[in-house]
């Protein structure tokens, strides 16, 4: 009876306790939700994504976020989370910038993110100092996705609707506000062309101007409209990239022959007033300059290459009469813009086989990084330790238990070996610091002082050390690279790791969870300053003028099936290099392996075979490939002690227009 009452009391006690705990849990979640709601109401997040709220999937996209704080001051970070897809499952990527907002303050921040999943919204969060989410908002991409690439029109009164083409060219014209233009050149990844029409460039920041310039150098098309208003054309930000100098305006009264110069069957209508054109004076001609001239040899269109892109300057106003209503304007514009996909530099997640860059990084790490100590040192240590202990116990006075000296010796021996084990295995044979390996491919662009940088990095740690990398010198946009682990195991490899990419004035990258025994890989692209001018002439050979700020070492020229060593060219030097038999090196691999290492040879081979770059490859007998090494333009600020391995390769393809060497 007593036992029944006791068990009943216990039963009721546990029921009551469980009910109380559940109430506490519910109240706690309600309170937390209310707190979050209050926080959300105190902080407003307004996001503008893409161009006029339209995005193209599988491209880099600008997101401009305006944060307004109506509550207490906030210090923390603004975090944008996207979801990327890989064969091994989806994984998040964090883009982050520090955020400090006083009460009543407002701040506008721009990110450049890669969008690859329509179904998963983009999360925008304000994170406090303690890591708590203070405010958040989700962007649903399903209603904002465009299947067309964009023609970005900047300017007053510009109506370029005739460029919309959903069928053949898949183009859509957008008219974004200046403040939403990308601050990073990769933000133009979904853009086919940019048209400037009577826009005040003072509304653009220096970063936006620089981004536009780099995007053109990377392969973009910029069309600048002239006409009677030359204020925009005289802007200092624009004059350097224009293919012609501006020398005022000229009046044309007879427009009957304009269409002939513009290669159109439709005559340009005669307006009520004389036609005013910008007087263009083409800059010194290069191979890629194109000039369409009208009557009196008047330049109507000047087009020139800048890096891999082109800048087109029209002497007439493309969005004003008479050209706005001209029947031939659409055809002319498509001919000038030549819509085609800008060569995307975004990396597709690695397939089943490791990429060339992954293989080269593997080789770099295998050759230069510390590996496990072999069995021999371990065996020697163990044998020595046990041997000393055997000698210790066989000492004649070893068994005097009361001897202090004996006790001291007994404890000293293992302590000495503890120190040896720590010093030898923890410091010398197998250091504990994480490893950072990077492979940088620098490809100077023609007709430009810029170069394209393709950067692959790998972080490797055996412990849960902090792996944050602060860097400078360049501002690449990084993407996660999924490691191809099928080489090593038949088990399902883990999903790609999550990175946090901090995009601000002091950029950094860091794995979100620093797990031990993991490899974290990322790839980034940027357009960097690299002023190296190379010309080839059959009579005088190669002329290389180096004003890059770096020394070029290990330079080799490859042409047809021959290799010539060119040595080192320091910054500021101009080297004249002749291809003669004295420099011919048939055993270039042996020489390069001796001066550098096997990784350098493998990198050169990959470049010569076209495995490392879509553009640098030896596919013509008249091409000369210049390959060499330089200091990496990506500079880490070593706040964390690491082992750093670098491989920075410079590669040009120099067209031989005057005969073979």
């Amino acid at each position, binding site marked *: 009876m007593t036992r029944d009452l006791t068990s009943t009391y216990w039963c009721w006690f546990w029921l009551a306790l469980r009910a109380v705990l559940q109430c506490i849990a519910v109240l706690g979640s309600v309170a937390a939700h209310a707190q979050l709601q209050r926080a959300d109401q105190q902080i407003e997040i307004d996001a503008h994504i893409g161009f006029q709220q339209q995005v193209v999937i599988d491209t880099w996209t600008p997101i401009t976020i305006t944060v307004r704080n109506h509550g207490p001051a906030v210090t923390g970070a603004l975090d944008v989370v996207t979801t990327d897809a890989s064969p091994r499952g989806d994984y998040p990527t964090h883009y982050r910038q520090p955020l400090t907002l006083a009460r009543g303050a407002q701040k506008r921040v721009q990110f450049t993110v890669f969008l690859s999943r329509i179904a998963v919204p983009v999360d925008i969060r304000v994170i406090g100092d303690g890591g708590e989410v203070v405010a958040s908002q989700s962007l649903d991409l399903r209603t904002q996705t465009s299947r067309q690439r964009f023609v970005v029109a900047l300017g007053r009164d510009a109506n370029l609707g005739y460029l919309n083409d959903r069928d053949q060219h898949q183009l859509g014209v957008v008219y974004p506000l200046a403040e939403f233009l990308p601050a990073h050149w990769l933000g133009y990844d979904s853009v086919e062309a940019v048209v400037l029409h009577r826009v005040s460039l003072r509304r653009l920041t220096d970063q936006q101007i620089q981004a536009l310039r780099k995007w053109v150098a990377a392969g973009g098309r910029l069309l600048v409209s002239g006409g009677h208003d030359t204020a925009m054309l005289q802007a200092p930000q624009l004059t350097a990239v224009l293919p012609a100098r501006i020398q005022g305006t000229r009046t044309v009264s007879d427009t009957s022959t304009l269409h002939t110069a513009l290669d159109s069957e439709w005559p340009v209508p005669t307006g009520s007033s004389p036609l005013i054109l910008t007087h263009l004076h083409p800059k010194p001609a290069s191979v890629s300059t194109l000039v369409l001239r009208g009557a009196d040899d008047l330049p109507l269109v000047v087009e020139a290459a800048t890096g891999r892109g082109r800048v087109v300057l029209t002497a007439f106003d493309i969005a004003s009469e008479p050209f706005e209503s001209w029947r031939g304007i659409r055809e002319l514009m498509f001919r000038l813009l030549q819509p085609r996909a800008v060569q995307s530099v975004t990396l597709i997640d690695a397939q089943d086989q490791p990429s060339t860059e992954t293989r080269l990084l593997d080789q770099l790490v295998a050759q230069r990084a510390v*590996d496990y100590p072999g069995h021999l040192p371990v065996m020697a240590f163990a044998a020595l330790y046990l041997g000393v202990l055997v000698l210790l*116990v066989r000492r004649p006075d070893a068994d005097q238990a009361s001897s202090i000296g004996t006790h001291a010796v*007994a404890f000293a021996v293992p302590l000495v070996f503890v120190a040896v084990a720590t010093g030898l295995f*923890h410091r010398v044979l197998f250091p504990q610091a994480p490893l950072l390996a990077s492979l940088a491919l620098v490809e100077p662009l023609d007709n430009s002082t810029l170069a394209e940088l393709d950067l692959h990095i790998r972080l490797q740690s055996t412990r849960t050390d902090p792996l944050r990398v602060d860097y400078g010198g360049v501002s690449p946009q990084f993407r996660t690279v999924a490691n191809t682990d099928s080489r090593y195991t038949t088990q399902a490899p883990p999903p790609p790791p999550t990175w946090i990419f901090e995009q601000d004035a002091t950029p950094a990258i860091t794995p979100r969870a620093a797990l031990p025994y993991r490899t974290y890989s990322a790839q980034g692209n940027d357009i960097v300053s690299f002023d190296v001018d190379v010309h080839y002439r059959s009579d005088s050979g190669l002329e290389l003028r180096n004003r890059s700020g770096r020394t070029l070492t290990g330079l080799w020229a490859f042409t047809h099936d021959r290799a010539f060593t060119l040595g080192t060219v320091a910054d500021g030097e101009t080297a004249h290099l002749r291809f003669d038999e004295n420099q011919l090196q048939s055993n270039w691999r042996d020489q390069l392996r001796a001066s550098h290492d096997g990784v350098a040879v493998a990198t050169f081979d990959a470049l010569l075979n076209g495995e490392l770059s879509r553009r640098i490859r030896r596919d013509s007998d008249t091409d000369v490939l210049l390959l060499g090494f330089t200091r990496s333009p990506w500079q880490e600020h070593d706040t964390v002690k690491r082992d750093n391995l670098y491989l920075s390769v410079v590669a040009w393809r120099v067209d031989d227009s005057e005969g073979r060497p």
Partner: protein
Amino acid sequence: MTDSAPSRLRAHSFAAITHGFLPYLALQAGVLLLWWPKTSLLERTGTGDEPATLVAVVAVGGAALAGFALLMDIFPPRSPPPGGRPTAAPPLAEQAHATIGYAGTQLAQIGYLMLLCLPLTLVAHAISSLAAVELLWIAAFTAVHTVFYRVLGIWFVLRWPAREAVLKLGCPAVLVSVYALTTVFSPCLSHAALSYHATAPNSAPPVLHCGALFVGSYTVLAVLLCFDGLRLLRSRAQQTSDDVAAQP
């Protein structure tokens, strides 16, 4: 010398302990070499496959310590030949300060045994992902474990002064307790489990996340055994004095 509890419960010399523990150390060294990684660091970081060297070394070391501590008085380690003289350590006295001194000596010897295992453990630790603090926790757990088996060994000798009786383990309650502990917290399993918990907490099963229960269980049991052992000593001392008083 008769095979009695007080004569067997004596403080062994460090040389004898070292000599007796050498085979266990050789076993630990063998495990270290066997479990030393045979694939490169590059391959292991690519797959997230951490070498199990430290776990194996700690497991073997823990089992060795527990076994040696348990059997140290049942099969006392002999002095190493040649030139070694018989141990002149004082037998266990029935006085409080001698008992305290004996207990202190046992703890020092357990510490010494753990120190003997430390160099090989540190070699394995060099290539593991374990932080130094986590290694200290494992050492603390190992110390508790070893102390319990040391106390258990002493208690066996006190309960069954004759070695044959100890070996037979005639008491059912003792049998059940030892087998239960061995099943739940056996030397190899507990150390390996703790090692896995410390090195890969996400992969350890829930039953192994009970370090406090482990420490509490072994500590309580060791304390109970100590009390019982002291009670046995006191009763033998009383019996001896009664025998002396009864002599004419």
